[in-house]
């Protein structure tokens, strides 16, 4: 039995979910930027975006997260632990690459010490993914062994109907099933065809890349210096990446009151690894770019058995100098061997 969610029933679903205590998040284009924001009704959503500029990761690992509030008085320091709110949320209209990014980051936030900020939100959310029927020149999910219909990280998969009226509902996890059972009265059973998936070409051979990266001599290769020449060292690729997870911890406030925060940080920044002594293990842009690629396609795999890239292509799409993972990995696959 295939269930169908018609677009004109989406408002009813949103109301039901909201009444059940969920906040509904969806891609919203506002002030020329697409990001996952809370919506009240279907018309708030911008579901026709290939990808919003910002990823769903932002809602689980925010750019700045208050952790501890402290008050310092003469003889005493009072602290208060700040935790994410208990709200449950439905993340609606996530793309398969963004959803996969969440699952890719789970082991990192969970190995040994569990990052409660991440997992509290993960446990309170249901990811409703919509398969891609359109792609652009930067999409590369197929190159990293995912696809416009991969279910990795999703609780529910929606497939757009070819008539454009709605989606076919495919529940993947118990959590997703429960969410859509709660709106079953708004779903219909009619037979309908799903639209054709986006055709995303394979842009590089990831096995070849991984093999090259695993070779110890590659670390010192001239390749890194050449490819990173034009990198200007901003953090836009890392901050817009659905899997990048590096952060900084900063105390912010005045002498007596303040908040300790967890802020995004980027391996592209020179200060990221700078020691107080002035020694910097990664002191050039090429070493920093190498770290990013190695981390994603070698180190991360070694630790968690998966590449830290879900193929969304934002790194290239938003890069001020038209760099990105695709080009670097293409160049690696084209290296003479």
């Amino acid at each position, binding site marked *: 039995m295939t269930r169908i969610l018609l677009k004109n029933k989406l408002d009813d679903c949103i109301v039901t979910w909201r009444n059940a205590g969920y906040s509904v998040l969806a891609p919203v284009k506002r002030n020329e*930027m697409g990001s996952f924001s809370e919506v009240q009704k279907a018309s708030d959503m911008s579901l026709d975006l290939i990808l919003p500029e910002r990823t769903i990761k932002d809602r689980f690992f925010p750019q700045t997260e208050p952790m501890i509030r402290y008050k310092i008085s003469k003889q005493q320091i009072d602290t208060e632990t700040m935790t994410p709110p208990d709200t449950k949320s439905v993340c609606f209209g996530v793309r398969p690459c963004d959803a996969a990014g969440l699952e890719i980051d789970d082991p990192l936030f969970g190995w040994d010490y569990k990052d409660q900020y991440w997992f509290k939100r993960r446990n309170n959310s249901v990811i409703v993914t919509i398969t891609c029927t359109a792609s652009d020149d930067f999409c590369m999910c197929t190159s990293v062994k995912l696809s416009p219909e991969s279910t990795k990280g999703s609780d529910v998969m929606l497939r757009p109907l070819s008539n454009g009226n709605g989606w076919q509902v495919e529940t993947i996890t118990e959590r997703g099933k429960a969410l859509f059972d709660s709106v079953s009265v708004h779903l219909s059973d009619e037979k309908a065809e799903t639209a054709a998936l986006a055709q995303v070409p394979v842009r590089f051979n990831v096995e070849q890349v991984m093999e090259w990266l695993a070779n110890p001599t590659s670390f010192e290769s001239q390749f890194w210096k050449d490819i990173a020449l*034009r990198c200007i060292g*901003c953090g836009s690729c890392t*901050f817009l990446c659905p899997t990048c997870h590096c952060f900084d911890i900063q105390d*912010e406030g005045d002498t007596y009151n303040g908040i300790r925060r967890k*802020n995004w940080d980027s391996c592209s920044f020179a200060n990221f690894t700078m020691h107080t002594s002035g020694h910097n293990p990664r002191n050039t842009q090429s070493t920093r770019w190498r770290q990013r690629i190695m981390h994603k396609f070698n180190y991360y795999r070694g630790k968690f058995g998966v590449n830290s890239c879900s193929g969304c292509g934002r790194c290239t799409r*938003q890069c*001020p100098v*038209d760099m990105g993972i695709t080009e670097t990995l293409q160049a690696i696959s084209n290296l003479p061997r």
Partner: protein
Amino acid sequence: MGIQEQYRSEAASLLSSGEVKLVIGFGAGSTADRRRPLFARTGEEANRFVLDASCIANLSTYLLTEGLLSDGKKVGIFLKPDGIRSINILIAEAQLKPDQVVILGYAIENGQLTALEGRSVADFNGVNEKIRSLALPPAVQQDIERLEAMSPVERFQFWQDQFSKCIKCYACRQACPMCYCRRCIVDVNQPQWVNTSSHTLGNFEWNIVRAFHLAGRCAACGACDRACPVNIPLRLINARMGREVREAFDYFAGESTDQKPVLASFSKDDPETFIL
């Protein structure tokens, strides 16, 4: 011979004669309408240069790459008039030696490319008047006027909405030829003047501080605006500052290499109508 072929062969001969060690230009990008910076070290590589109306980036930001010019050798670079302005400012601020730069100048007007006369920085001192006459794009002008017509409360709200998008990736800073400080004010932590967190307050501080540091130094190339991954209209704020120094001090950043930086100089009869 088109300008692309002309500059390819000129870059090739500069490289093969050893006059320059490197030419910074444009190559094909990842899509048909994208151009990416290309660094050529040999005459052969120079054949990959592309020059057309899509080459709008200001490449002068690469000239201050750490260590690039420390060997005293020359570098060739493709520049539009706004890039030449940037170079003039950098020279005026003693960040660049004029004799280390060979300019392959071009202008884009209505989608048509023209080559600019002259190769050395000094050659372009003669086109000051031309640079001075560069007007703001009408769209930018209109947006600024629209903002100025608002009440302060509305304007504050406008910028609050815009700055709340900022993620502090510092793409604006990194793309900007004028942001060459080895240690930016946000990286200074004793004391921490600018909050590093990218909440709206921290973003407000950062963007105001950057705009202030660029006042009278901005070449209006639009690199920050194009680099911004979340589309904050930074061009408006920088263009407004450019207008201010022009109106208040008749100062046009980058019109020559021997200008005194506007905020590092003064005149005894500067306007002071607002001072009580």
